[in-house]
């Protein structure tokens, strides 16, 4: 018995929102261990989301429809990417919807609307967060494209399923270009998902907030959706990294047992990835905002080096 590709598609769409809070919980557990604290447990993010859903919404007086649409849009867009990125299978009928460049632009639309929502209420903090977020993204985007380009050279395709198939089915070879672009990708992913050293997701200190400053006025189910979307975004970026750099064990047949095994393998990869992120986050301090051009500039240089390495060595 094999599962219909549309069924796998659906499975992925359910898997992402359900797993994402657990992944964030896992990251928190590891982080607490590293810093010698006791952790709230794997399920705490689920409890947070549930609590926020139950609470009433308090909406600022001059909030417009943009403020109210943004949470749904953010959640919807990120959920949609779960149908496009190969998590446990490459046999996805909707994977051709967007290649990796279009995928990055889908994240950009979330950012665009979140930044607008930050300005909608008319507080100084919201505007500050939007301004900084857009500055960081404008520096991250060229580096991101360079990393994508380097990865796409190996499979001569920007379609994610094609990349996974080519890389996983071709004979294994050491590619220095991929090593460079992996480092670049990690640096950029930390910036795009708002982690240390770029932004601190745990902070509520007024002057250092970036993402938190934009969503400061949200409450109730709106905040729940935004938080959930943020968790999903973190997991999506990890999945993107896995699909682009460690694609082994994604492609395979559609029978349920094999799918389950691949799902478990995927979760294992995520867990290891989470530990790596915690190591980076614990080892570094948050950067001053005007040091970020150097940080993202080095990501860009690494990706460019990867491209040059490809042309020279491979």
């Amino acid at each position, binding site marked *: 018995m094999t599962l219909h590709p549309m069924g796998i598609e659906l499975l992925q769409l359910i898997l992402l929102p359900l797993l994402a809070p657990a992944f964030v919980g896992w990251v928190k557990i590891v982080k607490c261990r590293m810093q010698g604290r006791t952790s709230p447990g794997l399920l705490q993010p689920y409890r947070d989301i549930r609590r926020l859903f139950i609470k*009433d*919404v*308090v*909406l*600022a*007086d*001059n909030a*417009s429809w*943009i403020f109210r*649409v943004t949470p*749904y849009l953010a959640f*919807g867009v990120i*959920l949609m990417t779960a149908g496009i990125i190969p998590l446990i299978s490459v046999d996805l009928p*909707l994977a*051709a*919807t*967007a*290649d990796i*460049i*279009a995928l990055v*632009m889908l994240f*950009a*639309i979330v*950012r*665009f609307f979140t*930044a*607008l929502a930050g*300005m*909608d*209420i*008319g*507080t100084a903090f*919201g*505007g500050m967060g*939007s*301004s*900084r977020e*857009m*500055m960081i*993204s*404008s*520096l991250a*985007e*060229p580096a*991101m*494209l*360079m990393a994508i*380009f380097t990865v796409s050279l190996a499979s*001569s*395709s920007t*379609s994610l399923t*094609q990349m996974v198939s080519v890389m996983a089915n071709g004979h294994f070879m050491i590619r220095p270009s991929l090593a460079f672009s992996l480092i670049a990708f990690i640096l950029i992913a930390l910036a795009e998902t708002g982690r240390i050293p770029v932004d601190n997701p745990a902070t509520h200190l007024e002057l250092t907030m970036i993402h938190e400053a934009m969503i*400061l*006025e949200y409450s*109730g*189910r709106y905040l729940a959706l935004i938080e959930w979307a943020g968790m999903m975004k973190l997991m999506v970026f990890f999945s993107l990294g896995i699909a682009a750099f460690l694609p082994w064990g994604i492609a395979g047949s559609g029978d349920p047992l094999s799918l389950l095994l691949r799902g478990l393998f995927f979760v294992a990869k995520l867990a290891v990835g989470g530990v790596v992120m915690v190591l980076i986050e614990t080892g570094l301090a948050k950067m001053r905002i005007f040091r970020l051009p150097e940080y993202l500039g080095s990501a860009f240089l690494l990706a*460019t080096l990867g*491209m*040059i390495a490809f*042309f020279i060595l491979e």
Partner: protein
Amino acid sequence: MSPLDIAGFSVLLLLGGALCAMLLSRFERMLVPAAFSLATLASLATATAGFLAVLQGTNHAATVAMGLPGLPFNLRLDPLAGFFLVVIGLLSTFVSLYSIGYLRAYLGKRPVTRLVVCYLLFLAGMSLVVLADDAYFFLLAWELMAASSYFLVMYEDEQAANRRAAFLYLLVAHVGAIAILLAFGIMAGLTTGGASFSNYTFDAMRAGALSPGWAAGAFFLAFFGFAAKAGVIPLHVWLPEAHPVAPSNVSALMSGIMLKTSIYGMMRVAFDLLHGFPWWWGGIVLCFGLVSAVMGVLYALMQHDLKRLLAYHSVENIGIILIGLGLSMIFTSFNFQSLAALALVASLYHTLNHALFKGLLFMGAGAVIHATHEKNMEEMGGLIHLLPWTSALFLVGCISIAGLPPFNGFVSEWLTFQALLLSPALPHPLLKLLVPLAASLLALTGALAAACFVKAFGVTFLGAWRGHRKKEQIGEVAFSMRLGMLLAALSCLALGVLPTLVMGWMDTVPLKLCGARIATSAGRFGWLWLTPYSHERASYSGPVVFFGLIAVVAATYLLLHVRRTAIRRAPLWDCGFERITPRMQYTATAFAMPIRRVFGFFFSIREQLELISPQNHPVMADSLHFRLRVRDRFWNWFYEPLSDIAFWIARRVGRLQQGRIQIYLLYSFVTLIVLLAFLG
């Protein structure tokens, strides 16, 4: 009726309309709706003619026995011209509708007949530029377009700044026109010897061949001339001056389509008249495109006059179009026909898209200025509550220009990216390394454009009202203005959601120019998947993104509203700060500050901070004055030295003028002697 007949008919309609408008200047209240309805009709006819010409993919030519004896006007409508007719026709339809409501504000305040006449002539001129098939008629049409737009920019001529801007525009336009004239001169004069007059037709230029040196000379003269009109950096200075002072419907046309006629000119000269060129021509075009794109958007970020900001964005988008064009030329020179076709389609698609969203944005800016009587966005804010329609439509324009899916700007930028990422096929090692860097610069441009439009929309429409006018005096604009914007916004969406249909339609253009068509779609549901090269390479599906987004968002919304939860409205929280005033909102200047600091070396920035305190006390200040001036470096680098030199020469030459008749007689006498000595 052939497409050329329809196009000719629409031009005659416009010219006849201009004549009648002059006669009807006594009845302005009637003239405005009549003239602009006529313009709408004529524009629709233009668009239809272009649409059919591209669809059929054949050439239609005609000769009109007007003009000088022995120099008849040659007209030709081929797919390339047809595509640009669609660009012209589509946007001018929307803008003409918009103008019916927009001009009502001027009625009774100042005579509008001049505006109406020049508007109609301007539209006719742009169509004729595209239809012309000989150098003589092309330049006539070009000048008709330039002169009528000059008068349109000059419309509110009581302010010195407006006159100055219009003069600058005229100056740059004519420097460009001279270069184009010289380029045509080279092509007509040197192709087959230049003995007969018939060399001035484009047909003769196509048939003839130039030596490589002269061909390069002709191309770069033409490129310079067209670049001056298109606002390519460093020839862009007139653009941010002229667009803000023109009436908004005119700025929409100028930015949306007049700039595109020079893109048409470049394509015509490079691919049609001069066919066959080395790769470095394309490389230079690509470099100019990159500089314009990046610098254009950076300067745009520093503006807080809404229309000036949009004007700088035109510079940016012309840059993006040139990136595609340059890349297409590079691919053509290495005989990669299908890749060249992809890059050309990306460039053309962005041309169409930019016309629509920039037209929409200028119309929106016009509506905002019309409603608030403010130009500076620091004095606006919160307009989303006061102008719900305008703000929603303006937002569509913002998303489109920022290149975000599922709107049209994304599709053309994505195609450009795909074309850039196919550069490893090139045999030249330098290009292999440098073209991907161009892709990253394009990514930078896109991200900065998104930042800029968060700023433009956020400061203008969101937050609370900052201006001096009472909020109650601000109301939604006239129906026809909203209709014009709505149609433009819908076209932006349609072009973004259904790119496969559009690209299937415009396939004939690259087929004629590059000798290949692009693979638009693959698979069973072809129209659903856009696969510009092959489906393994990359794919995008506008309909799935659009309808998928709607479905997911709607499902989430409905799921959450199974249980009714109350929404309580309350004053804003802002971390517990009290007494927030609208003045405490983030301003446009503050929003752009991080980017100003990161990219500071591109601007000449003068920042002054002044504390005003009773006893010169550094802490107990009464008020604080912050002055910031950010200027385009090109003024200091190019234009000020240039104008200094011009004045210096003028002063030297001025010494000849003594104002005494004896001296002038002496000059004539000396000249005569010299001439006799040399020629006798």
